[in-house]
């Protein structure tokens, strides 16, 4: 019994429970048809939200006001960069991925430079940066769809026994991220800064360096996500990352990470990512119109966060 109780106290349980409820509801509706296919589809789509979600989680954990609003623009630009560098040839896949990674990391570094040099709130800094990145993307990609090399498109859609390979790799990556967060000096520093930036500084944490690393990491994850998205959807375009602004923040918070910072949760990002994708699948299966789908999505997000409850006031 005690193990069940400790399990229920974990903040990420709720997001997985939500995902399970939504999945069961859909399977009941379809009479058991497509239950497995739904999981496969959910896993392959959730991957993209999870990757940026982990980056956003590290940034949000840095403390109140820290959030990266430049992710959609970043994803858009990186997808174009990756596809242009790959140029449709299989031999350039690795170079293209590295280019997307570098592009994203550079954007993250610039974000932090703006925050640090101008001492402006990260929300405004990343917002201003995203405007500029968007223009660069429009000008660079000329708004055209650029096709990925066939090998890369196949790789991002590759499944083994109904499980997308990309999802397996992302699970490994999230395990790594969880270890980095809980067991490495870097992750502990991020948590310390989020709990009390001044105390962390007095305790000898290199606040500036850690924040710089975190924004760069988040940018790099956005970049790699852009490249993978372009492969999966077989083409890069300016708007490819648009939905990941709200989604990245939503998975972080639904997954049990504190918006006030200093408390992060990696498994929850997976749970919340699956939950959001399955929710969309469920509403599509029910055949509701776009308007009703949006209303229900919103109400369910508010409902879940209300049910899971906020943190108890610390006083």
């Amino acid at each position: 019994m005690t193990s069940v109780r400790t399990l229920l106290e974990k903040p990420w349980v709720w997001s997985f429970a939500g995902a399970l409820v939504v999945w069961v509801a859909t399977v009941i509706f379809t009479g058991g048809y497509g239950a497995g296919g739904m999981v496969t589809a959910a896993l392959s789509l959730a991957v993209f939200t999870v990757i940026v979600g982990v980056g956003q989680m590290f940034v949000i954990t840095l403390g109140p006001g820290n959030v990266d609003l430049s992710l959609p623009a970043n994803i858009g630009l990186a997808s174009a960069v990756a596809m242009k560098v790959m140029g449709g040839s299989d031999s350039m896949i690795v170079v293209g991925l590295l280019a997307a990674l570098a592009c994203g990391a550079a954007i993250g570094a610039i974000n932090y430079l703006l925050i640090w040099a101008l001492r402006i709130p990260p929300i405004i800094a990343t917002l201003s940066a995203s405007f500029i990145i968007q223009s660069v993307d429009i000008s660079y990609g000329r708004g055209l769809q650029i096709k990925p090399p066939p090998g890369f498109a196949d790789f991002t859609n590759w499944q083994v026994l109904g499980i997308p390979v990309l999802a397996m790799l992302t699970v490994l990556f999230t395990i790594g991220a969880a270890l980095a967060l809980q067991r490495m000096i870097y992750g502990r520093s991020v948590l310390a800064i989020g709990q009390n930036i001044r105390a962390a500084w007095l305790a000898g944490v290199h606040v500036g360096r850690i924040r710089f690393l975190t924004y760069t990491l988040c940018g790099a994850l956005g970049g790699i996500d852009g490249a993978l998205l372009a492969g999966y959807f077989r083409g890069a375009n300016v708007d490819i990352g648009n939905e990941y602004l709200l989604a990245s923040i939503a998975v972080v918070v639904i997954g049990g990470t504190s918006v006030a910072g200093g408390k992060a949760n990696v498994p929850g990002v997976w749970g919340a990512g699956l939950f959001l994708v399955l929710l969309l699948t469920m509403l599509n299966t029910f055949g509701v119109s776009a308007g009703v789908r949006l209303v229900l999505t919103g109400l369910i997000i508010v409902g879940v966060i209300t049910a899971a409850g906020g943190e108890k006031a610390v006083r």
Partner: protein
Amino acid sequence: MTAIAPGTLPKSSQRGSAARARLLRGLLPALSLALVLMAIAWLNPRAISYFGFNLMLNLAIPIALATIAQMFVIAGNELDLSIGTFVGFVGCVTATWLRDAPLLGIFVLLGSIGVYALLGALIHLRNLPSIVVTLGMSFVWQGLAILILPKPGGKAPDWLLSIMSFKPPYIPFPILAALLIAAVVHFGLMRTSYGVILRGSGGNAAALRRAGWSLLKTKIVLFALTGLFGVLSGMALIGITTSADANIGNGYTLLSIAGVILGGGEFVGGRVSPIGAVLGALTLALAASPLLTFMHIPPDWQVAANGAILIIVLAARVLISRRER
């Protein structure tokens, strides 16, 4: 607003320079606006006229109202990520029901303000992060807007059209309206005793609670005021554009946050300024398109120029606030 930390008061000369720096900081939103206006005057002197301002500041009224709406939640240390889609929802209601069935329209708009008040209560009672709750609500408002008006269209009520096309003598209407909005909100939030309590709920909630004030009530009032100004913003927008579209307000979420910060507001601590917020909104409205058109910036780079202007203005602010320390 002007709390001075103990121990920083010893010399009168120091105090004088600190006060000057603070005054300068307070004037910053006005300086940014002046900067943008000078740039426009230099690039196209003819724009600085009655008709020029009417044209350039066309959309400034709804932006200013949305910024004020955002300012109220920020005063309580919260953030509203749904204000843009809410403005769009109000726009759709205004262009359909408010014209065809005024009673129903008024009822729905008042009801939506009530929803905002309930959100404030929910956020306070369950201690929820406002970012997520309003994120969820942004989907709800957008969905409702699409349900009301699946295709762009509708028409603004005639009375609203005539209000928004009002041409007062000498002073362009947008400027008059901005002055009025700033004055009313400044009086309400900065000069009344309950305004102090509202700002205090963001500044030091624990102290307010110990003094016997209801934090639930302040949260409800702040969110209801956000709803009210969101409704006004949506109506003003439709009065100008004459018809609606479910996505019409989407850009307002980020615009309103930027306006509050440009106007000298801060995300935490109840430090906001209504006059600054209105000036910030005017600066953004001017910087957005007229300035760029006059600078002959190609369409590809207009968004980038927007971001660059935001960064330049904020950089200027840092240069000045650094002297404050």
